[in-house]
């Protein structure tokens, strides 16, 4: 249990963390985004505009100068993040050490893995259009054979999820199918089966199961589980609240989130 005293002022003009289209007004918000998404700290974030914002809006002249020097020296994004964390004291000594080790491990990974992680971070932050583009670029450039088929199967699986989040179920099903065929993971099959009924008629769905030789019992269990999840969500207190009095606000919020997720 602890309380972080906020000593740095709140900015009048925000800084936009471009990969996630999120504006931040405080150094704590910036630290939070970097801590939970270190992969997003790319050139669009770590640049002169960040240094200017830190100086002019937050009044942190020393940190701004330090960041500027690091950027000029082409220091890694991880070391720049750590500089910011140290200035604010965002992490304890032990936490800072652990996080630094994590950043070092991530930084040592192959470029394709880093790009996938970047796409994963975008997807986690609902930036689906951007995530899809990153995954597609990876699939178009499958030069790094040493990463193995499973890596690209995972990319296809994630691309499927991103399309599903955009309600593009036919495309999602296509990528889930490829992921299942190349990676052989049962989870990919489950997702594939979950997506099919969202754009196929019952008859077409049954035809597809026969065509692919998929175990009907397994397919039935997947659909039953999905139905159970939907029933539980529909019966929740939150759903009740939304239906009773919060539907317009909820729909507006979802529309805004969707528009933001398609940005890009």
């Amino acid at each position, binding site marked *: *249990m*602890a*309380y*972080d*005293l*906020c*000593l740095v002022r709140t900015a009048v003009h*925000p800084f936009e963390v471009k990969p996630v289209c*999120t*504006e*931040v*007004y*405080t150094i*704590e*918000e910036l630290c*939070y*985004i970097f801590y939970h998404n270190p992969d997003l700290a790319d050139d669009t974030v770590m640049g002169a505009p960040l240094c200017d914002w830190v100086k002019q809006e937050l009044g942190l002249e020393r940190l701004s100068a330090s960041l500027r020097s690091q950027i000029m020296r082409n220091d890694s994004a991880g070391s720049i993040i750590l500089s910011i964390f140290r*200035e*604010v*004291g*965002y*992490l*304890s*000594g032990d936490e800072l050490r652990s996080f630094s080790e994590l950043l070092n491990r991530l930084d040592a990974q192959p470029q394709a893995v880093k790009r996938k992680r970047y796409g994963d971070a975008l997807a986690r932050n609902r930036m689906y259009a951007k995530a899809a583009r990153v995954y597609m670029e990876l699939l178009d450039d499958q030069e790094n054979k040493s990463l193995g088929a499973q890596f690209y199967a995972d990319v296809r699986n994630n691309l499927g999820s991103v399309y599903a989040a955009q309600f593009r179920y036919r495309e999602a099903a296509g990528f889930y199918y490829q992921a299942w065929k190349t990676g052989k993971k049962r989870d990919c099959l489950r997702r594939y089966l979950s997506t099919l009924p969202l754009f196929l008629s019952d008859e077409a769905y049954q035809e597809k199961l026969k065509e692919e030789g998929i175990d009907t019992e397994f397919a039935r269990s997947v659909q039953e589980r999905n139905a159970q999840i939907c029933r539980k969500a529909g019966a929740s207190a939150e759903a009740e609240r939304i239906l009773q009095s919060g539907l317009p606000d909820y729909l507006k919020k979802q529309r805004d989130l969707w528009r933001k997720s398609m940005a890009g």
Partner: protein
Amino acid sequence: MQTSNDLILGIDLQEDYTQLTYYHASVKEPVTLGLAPGRGKLPGALYVDGNRKWGFWDKEQTAAAGEVQVIDHIYAKVDRQEKITAAGREWSAEELLEQYLRQCIELVRMFRKEGSSLYVMVTVPALTGVWSGCIVSALEKIGLPRKNIYMQDHLTSFYYYAVNQKKNTWTQDAALIEYEKGEIRGYILHIDSASRPRLATVEKVSAQKLTEEMREGRPQDAWDKEKDRLFFEFLKRVFEHRNVSVSYLTGDFFSKEWAERSIQYLCYKRQAFQGQNLYSKGACYAAIERTGLIPDRGILFCGNDVVRSNLGMEVRIRGKKQYYPLVNAGINWYEAYHVCELIPDGTSNLCLVSKPVGEGEPVTHLLRLDGLKNRPNRTLRLRLTIYFTGAGCCRIEAEDLGFGQIVPSSGKTWVRNIQIA
């Protein structure tokens, strides 16, 4: 005393006049200012002309000012929260006080340098909620930040005046003697050196009515003798069973012309001083101490309106855990006010600790931040506001500021009133 480019003012507001004492790098000791040399009292009245230009109403200087409206008894009007109509509009008591204090601050405008700060301590005979609200509101409208505004009553100003004189004058008790509304009043400042920190108190020990009605037709010399006798008896009551090393007489009521025997007694083995600006100087000294130009002397003044506990929290400042004071003991509860922003990590409660000065154990106070389901950790930025509603009654307000676009504010504010010793 260290020097500073900041300007520090002590303003003593009284019913019939005001006194202004300032301190600045250009002077060694606080200096009392008036409208003209030798006239240390400022009028308790204002004038306003048709163009809404305000000024002190001093009959001698402004008689030729032309058509103006005079607003007298400013103190009484503010005390009664009376509205007035002037220059074509209605003015609230706060606005009236604002205009009056503007005139006071205008007198020291030449001492203000660019980039320097202005600190003001206002002292009044008795500090009430009405006065504290009006003073803060008026000075904020003039442009002073809240943290530069201080207030205290006359007895507190007496304490600060006394302890800023030579140390040998207050190693024993100090007496304050004033004449107010037909009564001589005696107060004793006592500092308990056995406690840590040392505790200072001022208490009223005696009073003697002394009005013209009591003259009962006596000729002047007989009346002077009677006044002297009454004053002498009064002083005996003030000093009995006490070690008083110094006495301060305020105002111009006391005079050797009629108090010959009393003053001889007063000065026997004691120092005695008479003056007119004790409260405004004391106010100025108090403001100087608040700005840190006088080192802490290790004495806590236990006035009626003083907060007697330290209130704080354990927080992380730049990653290091340390005690963060929210309200320090020794300040007037009307002034006790603190705002800060913090982000809880791993908890949905606010935990504050109060510790009485002197004896007493620390007490932990919990404010539960209910109704924040599923809030991700470290995304709750709180504005914490602390103020007092009485000498021992503290109000804590915590407002959810949200976390930018990451997590919007819930709009909730949590409030708790706590009693501290």
